């Protein structure tokens, strides 16, 4: 069958079931109630502190076939997933589903557990590194479910991703299960992606290497949700958790694209008091913030809020008065941690608040502008951020599709040629974010406006921006680089790409070796 953007889906996907075909960004009308979390109680004298992960496994008890969930706030410094799975393997547990909000190179150990049958299913929003490669090569018999950040919150809350045990890596905890992300050696800032897991999992285990005196302050995840607290020697490696100061790109082509994106924002009439903005932490995205900031300074504009993954650059804009608030689901660097710890205008929010489509208002809906990247974009403006030029999984939506759907204007910034590869293709290999939610593509050789946005097109033309048809930009790139040969794939589905509402926007098929 084909979904509404023409992607070919199997009628039944083995190990996944019958896909609900994607039918439009805002078509889904949920007719259901939220999952009711398990009702629990505790005796006033009961203790939550458990000595070892093994003891927790036995007390719950964790058995074959369960779903264990994790967040990715420790990014490439995470030590918790590996320790929990090592425990499962040592206890001889099989057939686990791992619901980890993002998978990083540090999680390479997963591959061995997949091969030995400890882990047989994976549910995630983003994956890079060896696990992504192994999945692409078919290490799992059942396809991975790839969600958006908002979609994961939705799936947990609506009972489509039931969690038996949530292991929450906590930089700081007290012995009664209050948690925060801003203290201790593994401080990571916001714990936003762990909130739905803490609220909806049958069992919640905090894993920490820093136990503070009761009651912990501040509290991000409260004691009333947490069943157990396990102290381990080391929950994560700070060097992999936080990055250094994120620098604006020095690449002249990237800067040219960023400057052009800033002009697009201005030409669209959005750069005024109350402006709200989201951009990535990558070099080019951050450079857009830099050019926006220059204009805000010149025109004395005060924005409302910046959203998303927060970097030191955004913290600086908050502190210098360019934005009144930061809404933070995930922090990237030490400055972001310092700020969220001390500044009441720097808000910690859950993945649900940030981006879930099935609530009555998530933060992305309040965005004027989001600036996003792409590994491919096609002539219908559908974007791929899942698979790379070799067809191997190297990312995932994360918040990409969520922010694109919510923002008034969604801008994709990309080099027209990445190395030799044209960024614009006839049809993306994997559709992640639908074209109807993408408004403008900005490249170093011109700007293309989605034909569904005639008013925006008029504004950009009036501002004298170098607007071109997306087909013309594509032809320009192919003239320079030659027409690339299309990748061929097998029929075997290695991942199902769910849109934020749970419908299937595409599948990832294994590439021919």
């Amino acid at each position, binding site marked *: 069958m084909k979904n509404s953007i023409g992607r070919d889906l199997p009628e039944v996907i083995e190990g996944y079931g019958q896909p609900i075909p994607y039918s439009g960004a805002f078509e889904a009308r949920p007719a259901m109630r939220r999952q009711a979390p398990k009702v629990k109680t505790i005796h006033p004298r009961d203790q939550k502190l458990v000595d070892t992960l093994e003891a927790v496994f036995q007390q719950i008890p964790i058995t074959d076939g369960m779903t264990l969930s994790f967040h990715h706030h420790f990014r490439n410094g995470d030590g918790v997933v590996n320790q929990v799975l090592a425990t499962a393997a040592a206890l001889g547990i099989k057939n686990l589903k791992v619901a980890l909000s993002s998978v990083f190179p540090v999680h390479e150990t997963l591959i061995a557990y997949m091969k030995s049958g400890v882990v047989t299913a994976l549910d995630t929003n983003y994956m890079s590194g060896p696990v992504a490669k192994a999945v692409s090569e078919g290490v799992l018999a059942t396809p991975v479910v790839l969600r958006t950040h908002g979609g994961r919150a939705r799936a947990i809350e609506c009972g489509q991703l039931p969690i038996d045990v949530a292991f929450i890596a906590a930089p700081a905890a007290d012995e009664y299960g209050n948690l925060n992300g801003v203290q201790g050696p593994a401080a990571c800032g916001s714990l936003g992606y762990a909130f739905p897991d803490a609220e909806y999992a049958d069992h919640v285990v905090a894993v920490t290497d820093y136990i503070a005196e009761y009651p912990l302050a501040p509290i991000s995840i409260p004691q009333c949700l947490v069943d157990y607290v396990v102290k381990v020697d080391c929950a994560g490696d700070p060097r992999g958790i936080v990055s250094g100061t994120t620098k604006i790109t020095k690449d002249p*082509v990237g*800067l*040219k694209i960023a400057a052009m994106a800033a002009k697009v924002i201005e030409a669209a009439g959005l750069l005024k008091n109350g402006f709200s903005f989201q951009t990535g932490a990558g070099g080019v995205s951050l450079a857009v913030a830099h050019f926006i900031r220059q204009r805000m300074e010149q025109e004395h504009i005060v924005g409302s809020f910046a959203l998303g993954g927060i970097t030191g650059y955004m913290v600086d804009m908050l502190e210098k008065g360019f934005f009144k608030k930061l809404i933070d689901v995930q922090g990237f660097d030490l400055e972001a941690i310092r700020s969220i710890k001390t500044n009441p205008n720097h808000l910690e929010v859950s993945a649900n608040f940030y981006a879930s489509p099935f609530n009555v208002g998530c933060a992305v809906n309040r965005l004027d502008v989001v600036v996003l990247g792409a590994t491919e974009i096609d002539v219908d403006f559908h974007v791929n951020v899942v698979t790379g030029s070799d067809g191997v999984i190297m990312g995932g939506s994360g918040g990409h599709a969520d922010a694109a759907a919510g923002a008034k204007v969604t801008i994709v910034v990309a080099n027209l*040629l990445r190395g030799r590869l044209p960024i614009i293709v006839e049809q993306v290999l994997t559709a992640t974010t639908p074209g109807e939610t993408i408004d403008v593509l900005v490249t*170093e050789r011109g700007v293309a406006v989605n034909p569904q946005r005639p008013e925006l097109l008029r504004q950009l033309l009036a501002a*004298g921006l170098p607007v071109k048809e997306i087909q013309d930009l594509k032809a320009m790139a192919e*003239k*320079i680089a030659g027409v690339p040969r299309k990748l061929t794939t097998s029929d075997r589905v290695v991942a199902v790409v769910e849109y934020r509402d749970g419908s299937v926007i595409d599948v990832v098929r294994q590439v021919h070796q």
Partner: protein
Amino acid sequence: MNLRRTMLFIPGNNPGMLQNGGVFGADSVILDLEDAVAPQEKDAARLLVAQALQTVDYGTSERVVRINPLDTFGAEDIQMIVPCQPDVLLVPKVEGVQDIEKVTALVAQAETAGQKPVQLIALLETAKGIALAYEIAQSKGRLTALALGAEDYTAGLGATRTKEGKEIFTARSLVINAAAAAGIQSLDTPFTDANDEAGLYQDTLTGKELGFKGKLAINPRQIDVIHGVFNPTPAVIEWAEEVVHAIRKAESEGSGVASLHGKMVDAPIVARAEYILKLARRLGLEVMQ
């Protein structure tokens, strides 16, 4: 009129920069075989630039190649580059009219039948070159501009290079005057701190006010700032329109002399006004008539 507000250096042995050189909107790109290329890579860069000239679309940017001096690799550069149809060669370390004559002879030899004649720009970057600026500027035929290279020049003098540039005031003026006297363009030395936007603006303005028609650029980030200085402002365009209007009116009334706001409008002022309007139209800026 060759518009050369910005001439952007592109390192000649860097394929990524060479293929993207046209996207920054510089009036000229200078594919550099000299300072940007290590001696052992001169052969590689020469072939790469030769290929780039034949295949890369530099859009509206004029295509300039900075060759090496004739006493090193210059002759080989000319032999390979000229048949690839560059618009201009930038000749470094020019110290006398004979340098231009030698290059001219080699270029003429290397040109293919029917090829658009390759122009030359002399880069003056030594005390001797500055001292002989007017003589060099008078080289007949291919020479289209003089450019100042202040880093080597001040190093040779033993002068302290400053952001304010008082140490190059005389050299700037000599180059501007020599070029103007010979009826060719003068182009200002690059501002070498790519991170100092305010400094770049001030330095460009200083050069423009002295009479330079454009400036060399070492980083694409410098282009917008330099264009901002050299582009006529709305007030200047308006003044130029008034001047041209006044002289037309005077002419139609049979008088060769016009006045504007009580001041006489003479031929040099009319020429300047016409240049500004031409520039403004070329840049797509708002012009009334």
